[in-house]
């Protein structure tokens, strides 16, 4: 029951009558362990048999100061028409120096990415399918197919990470589920990457 720092508690309780010895603690720098400051999309081209070819390339969204103070910088994603890619999402907290990808993987049953924006819904130019280890639908790993002849060359990739959702909610197996909010939970990430098709 005694959660108080014993030293302060005693100083305040016993010497309180003097109204002098009871002082607040010195402040401590607190690292924001919860925040995701860097989100990296890593693409690797796949050949027709689904094997990786060529070197992976990355696009990044970052917000080094966390939620309250920073201004995020988001890179433009450039992909080639008609090609398929392996897409990995890498999450990092640069404030606490922590890899968040592993934490999300550990809590696979509580997390899921959804892929929306003009790139994925309406007349989609990208087709996404989950391909996570263990078969759980998370979105840390997946494949993206770029349309052979897309209706437009510029689009938005809106990537949403939901936490504590009901993964069995009807429709939630769809990576482009627009009513993701219906499945409950809250948003940990909501980033819109500009997409350019070449």
């Amino acid at each position, binding site marked *: 029951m005694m959660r108080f720092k014993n030293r302060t508690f005693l100083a305040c309780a016993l010497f309180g009558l003097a*109204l002098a010895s*009871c002082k607040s603690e010195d402040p401590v720098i607190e690292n924001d362990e*919860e925040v995701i400051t860097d989100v990296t999309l890593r693409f690797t081209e796949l050949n027709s048999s689904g094997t990786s070819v060529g070197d992976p390339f990355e696009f990044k969204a970052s917000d080094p100061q966390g*939620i309250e103070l920073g201004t995020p910088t988001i890179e433009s994603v450039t992909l080639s028409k008609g090609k398929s890619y392996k897409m990995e999402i890498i999450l990092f907290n640069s404030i606490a120096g922590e890899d968040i990808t592993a934490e999300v993987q550990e809590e696979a049953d509580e997390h899921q990415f959804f892929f929306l924006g003009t790139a994925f819904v309406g007349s989609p130019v990208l087709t996404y399918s989950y391909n996570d280890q263990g078969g759980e639908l998370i979105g840390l790993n997946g494949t993206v197919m770029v349309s052979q002849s897309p209706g437009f060359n510029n689009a938005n990739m809106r990537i949403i990470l939901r936490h504590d959702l009901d993964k069995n909610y009807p429709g939630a197996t769809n990576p482009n589920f627009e009513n993701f*909010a219906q499945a409950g939970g809250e948003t940990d990430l909501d980033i819109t990457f500009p997409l350019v098709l070449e």
Partner: protein
Amino acid sequence: MENNDPIEGAYIWIVESATGAVSDENGNFIVKNLCAGNYSLTIQYLGHKEIKDTLTLNSNNFNKTYRLEEESLDLSGVEIHGHKLAVQTTTAVTALYGDALLEARGENLGESLKRISGVTTFSTGNSISKPVIHGMHSNRIMILNNGIRLEGQQWGAEHAPEIDPFVADEITVIKGAETVRYGPEAMGGVILVNPAPLPTKKNPKTNIYLTGASNGRSGNISVSHANGSDKIKGLGYQVQASAKRAGNIHSPDYYQGNTGLSELNFSGSLGYSSTKLGIEGYYSYFNTTLGILRDSHTGNLDDLINIIKNGRPFSDPGFTYEIINPKQVVSHHLAKLKSHYHLSDSWKLNFQYGFQANNRQEFDKRRGDLNAKPSLDLELFTNTLDLFVDHSLKNEWSGSFGINAIQQANSNVPGTGVTPLIPNYDMLNLGIYAIEKYSKGPLEVEGGLRFDTRSVSTARYVQSELQTADLSYNNFSAFIGTLYQVSPKITFNSNLGTAWRPPNVNELFSEGLHHGAAAVEIGDADLNSEKSIKWVNEIEYDGTKTHLEITGYANHIKDYIYLNPTGDTFVSLRGTFNVYEYLQANAFFYGVDFSASYEFSNRLNGYAKGSIIRAKNTEEDNYFPFIPSDRMDWGLAFKFGSLTSTKTNKLTLSNMLVARQKREPDFDLAPAPPAYALFNLGYQRQLEIGKDKLNLGLQVQNLFNTSYKEYMNRFRYFTDDMGRNILLKINYQF
């Protein structure tokens, strides 16, 4: 002790002419100007049996001597119908005690006080409710736990008062500005939570309360025991403990996920009193774990908009007692030492020291191991010292003057993994005051003056840089009040008082994300103290069948501090958030409370009570958010059984009418919910088993399981309010 000594100060009352007299030092009294006829006479003197006599007046002069018979002052077993207020003031005061408090047992402080007209709640779901007096709450009102000002983290909208109403034998609400008597912040009013006086001789009394409720499947037990010593005269003690457990609350159409609570409290006191000296030690411990509706914890503005559009939580996890994150774990220790010494017949010296330790931990839904760490972990220590002299002189003057010191240390407990919302700080407040009252016959006039000085020093890290601030605030406050007994049935009182409230640390330094509101809140270190002047008038009519109380008030506040939406949004990788800032503007609050009852017959009684509040930002000419809408509660009570019996046996049907808040602020996340009407049913019965008393209560709240949303509930954005609730309340006194 029979003798022929004259009695001074006995009250003599002539019923027909409604005139009276008080006997002088020789025991004589004169009643003049009566016409011939029959008169009923009543004579009362404390500690003596009341005399009732009828006499026929024929001649111009009539003399008669009455002998008063002494009566033991042991009041046990006597039904007390009269009631002495916990505080002697000329401002509007209402108290909850006896049967009314019995009906409220098991409810939290805010809910209990809703029974008083003019008092509403500002709540966060069904388990967190803060009392609102005349539209003001949190740091603008004060709560006294057995005489000590409760110092928790009251600044937060979702921070409920850390107090167990079971400690109280009586809860009193003062509706005036009482800064002079109680210190800064008592701007809207004061709530006094007072235990029963300690016994001074051997007379063991035990009270057991058991409450069960269908909604939330809650159970509540409280046991108290009081006794005095037969060896040492004047020595007495009281111990009390209570426990509460509740699961998910049910709205008419669904369960609200993670809305359970568990609570464990105890208190004890030991006292000694003699003719000259009184000394009392008191300790209370309050500990609660409160589940917070899962869906109210939103990730960003989109989440918030989505759930508001949905009108109800997305999840319906069914019933469980389990409490998961988000949740609050709060504990509060309060220890006090109080003493008084009668310097003479008319002068009394008082000393009171209080120590409080408050720990508030708030857990959010986080990732992995972080779930076990609180996101907010605050430790607050408060010392209060009061030293004052009371006098009650032989002539018409009485009053008190004294000094008061409050010292506070607030620390963020490291290890949360979240940048703290408010800095660590130390605060010292010193006050000096004097209050004097003049009473003569039906008139009382009272006035008071106080000076306070407060210093606050804060420290925190912003982007790895130590940032400190030293602030100071000084203020004079004053009040004047009067009470006039117009006739035996009509009393009028009027009180004009100034009050002040230095800005709170959160208002000065907040800089962080508020998950429930998807908002970034930004403080302003340059805020001034709020200063107010409140005028309260009350008229009370106490007839044989009719009882009526009307309170009207006006409160002007200079530099009222409020959280204003800037209209800007903040974009991050997590999504978008609204930005709010603390601003100041002049405010004007005014309104009326009323409470009336009428006896239709000796079995049927009707009552009505209600309140109207208007609050405006007079600079911007717009409305403040979260001001209670117009409301009224009316009902009929039917008495069963023998008419002469003093034991309660009644059925009450009541109807609560709440209007839509049409005076909305320019910006709100969702429009004010529609008006609603609720019906409640209650049956209260008292039985005697030998010398013991058994009180049984059965209540049905929200009889028709109506779906509704209350404007003053912050969770109206996310969910309907509570559905039907059937409660069984058992109290055994022996």
